[in-house]
């Protein structure tokens, strides 16, 4: 009886008695969700264009952030370092297309997937060789990212909002909106959607697959850089950041591998869901549940929509 009370009544009683904590939890979930969405977006972009699940997206986040901080440590001014890092991500996209993707055209998807594993380990080794394994602090001040926090007296309590979290939410939202416009309104965006629908059909109407892949990997690199800056500012820049990319998996399962809105909605559901779950139900089983709770949430959705919330319906023709 006691356990039923703890599961079904106590958490809701706590929500009602301390609405400020509920609001704080929702805010934390929302910020995490936006950042998860940003990571998931990197996966979606590449999956849409090439049908490849890019396992290297996580290490691209670390590599981009390390390049930025590493260049600045070498004395390059922050904004010049930012521009140079964007350049490095372009070179990476170009190299991936030339060295990894092009030779593997027409190979089964699993081969391309395994190639991204190789890319991951190459970037880990290369990154450690160039920048070392030490964690580095994100150059938040130099990039004029806001510091500090604001305490809001709300709902009879205190809600603390970190300025960096507001910036993260705003920048991520703007980025997502810009990408949505880019892919739906521009010529390149339409070409990308054509490639996503069918490589052969796209080639037959004169769309350059090589060019599209470079653009998509470069865009995923920019998304990785923004993600790296934001996560790095919240904790620090280290190779442990790549593990956070695993959080994008339940987001993708939930939102669908091919949908940008799916990545956003999925990210928000997972972000808010895991924080609420950990905070209100975690103590029941000793805490630390958010790691697997995200997958549980995704699995629950999968039972009803195997293609994810916004994924394309799976139709196998025989």
């Amino acid at each position, binding site marked *: 009886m006691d356990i039923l009370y703890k599961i079904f009544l106590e958490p809701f009683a706590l929500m009602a008695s*301390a609405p400020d*904590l509920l609001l*704080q*939890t929702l805010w*934390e979930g929302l*910020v*995490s969700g936006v950042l998860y969405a940003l990571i998931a977006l990197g996966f979606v972009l590449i999956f849409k264009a090439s049908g490849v699940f890019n396992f290297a997206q996580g290490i691209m986040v670390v590599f981009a952030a390390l390049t930025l901080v590493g260049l600045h440590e070498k004395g390059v001014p922050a904004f010049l370092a930012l521009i140079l890092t964007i350049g490095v991500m372009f070179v990476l996209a170009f190299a991936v297309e030339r060295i990894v993707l092009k030779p593997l055209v027409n190979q089964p998807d699993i081969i391309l997937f395994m190639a991204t594993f190789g890319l991951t380990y190459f970037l*880990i080794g290369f990154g*450690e060789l160039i920048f*070392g*394994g*030490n*964690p580095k*602090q994100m150059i938040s001040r130099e990039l004029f990212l806001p510091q500090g*926090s604001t305490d809001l007296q709300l709902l009879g309590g205190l809600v*603390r909002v*970190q300025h960096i979290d507001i910036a993260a939410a705003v920048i991520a939202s703007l980025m997502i909106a810009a990408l949505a416009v880019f892919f739906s309104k521009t010529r390149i965006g339409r070409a990308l959607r054509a490639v996503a629908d069918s490589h052969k059909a796209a080639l037959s109407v004169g769309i350059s697959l090589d060019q599209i892949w470079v653009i998509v990997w470069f865009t995923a690199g920019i998304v990785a850089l923004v993600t790296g800056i934001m*996560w790095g500012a*919240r*904790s*620090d820049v*280290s*190779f*442990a*950041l*790549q*593990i*956070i990319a*695993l*959080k994008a998996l339940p987001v993708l399962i939930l939102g669908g591998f091919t949908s940008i809105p799916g990545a956003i909605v999925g990210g928000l559901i997972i972000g808010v869901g*895991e*924080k609420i779950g*950990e*905070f209100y139900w*975690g*103590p029941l089983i*000793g*805490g*630390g549940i*958010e*790691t697997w709770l995200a997958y549980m949430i995704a699995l629950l959705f999968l039972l009803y929509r195997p293609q994810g919330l916004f994924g394309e319906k799976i139709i196998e023709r025989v």
Partner: protein
Amino acid sequence: MLGKFTLGAAAAVLIGATALPAAAQDSIYVPLLTYRTGPFAGSGIPIADGMHDYLRMLNERDGGIGGVKLTIEECETGYDTKKGVECYESIKGKNPAVVNPYSTGITLQLIPKAAVDKIPMLSMAYGLSPSADGNHFPWIFNPPVTYWDGASVFIKYVAEKEGGMDKLKGKKIALLHLDAPYGKEPIPLLEALSKELGFQLILYPVAAQDMQNQGAIWLNVRRDRPDWIYLQGWGAMNPTAVKEAVRNGFPIGKVVGVWWAGGDDDARAGGEQAKGYKSLDFHAVGTDFGVIKDVQKHVIDKGLSKYPKDKVGDNLYNRGIYNSMLVAEAIRTAQAVTGKKVVNGEDVRKGLEALNITEARLKEMGMEGFAAPVKVSCEDHNGHHKVFVAEWDGTKWVKASDWMEPMKDKVRPLIEAGAKDYAEKNTGWPKRSEPCAKQS
């Protein structure tokens, strides 16, 4: 022609293979299981460099130990238990003097192998706390303190600040820990003390995957309002925890880390507001010691180290120095006990068991004021030595308490019970047959 070439190559390999042990006889092989890569590299690099640089300094300055050069070899584990065991398997045939696993997870896997392979294991202030019982674990050594000693000192420190042990009743004390064998180690001791002293113990496990994503954990902290937090984190978890404490307005002076949560980078991450963060420690920081100056002169200045010059003296670098000092002293003692110059694992086990680093010896080594004396016995492979509380002043760690004695009366019975329990649960655990080694 090809046949002759193949035969020649095979012969060369055979000659090389037989020549290896002969070459190994001229030196003492000291493998170091380290991690310079992966999510825990931030903590692993300074320790790896400290360990390497001290041993290298002995080679450069003294020509090794007792006139025998040390062969130092690192094996990268990435703090991954599987890789650590692979490293061990790759080095065990090379006649290692002692193994330093540098991970509680790896230590737990290697404990049953040590007695079989006759290789002593030094898990310096980490690993399985009950392995301090020499009667059950003759091949495992974990001086100068166990995690249980550390947790007991933390409770003593809290009691001191709160006005006495009786004032702990009703207090909320939290353990924020990595959800891994290392992070869970202090739980049994804290649970026992919680029952005895009446404080409420709250556990906050942090999965390795969420080391840099602790938002939800700190919401729980805000809800539960613990009076004190004991941080048993590692790698990227520590700087994130310090940052989150600052972000969430938790009084940073009431966060005390175990000695592994006391990296300079861990505290530095919290910026100006991390001033007052505390950590347990058992050696000094800085370069103002003869031993560090020798490392600078013989290794750093000659470009024989990978560590940045300006970071020499950092807490975890000095931890590595301390670790290698124990290794070197165990070898030196083994030479004295056995009368041999080139010692092997069995000899060094005796050396570790007879280890007695006195104040005079510390002075001789240029470590006066750097560390406290260490004594290990056949029954007690740890010593349960004193530790102190260090405080981050915004730029460096400073000593913030006197040397504090662990609650030996509480820890030792738990150690012995834990060791007995371990032996019973592991069917066929061998009874100690090794005679007690004593220094003449």
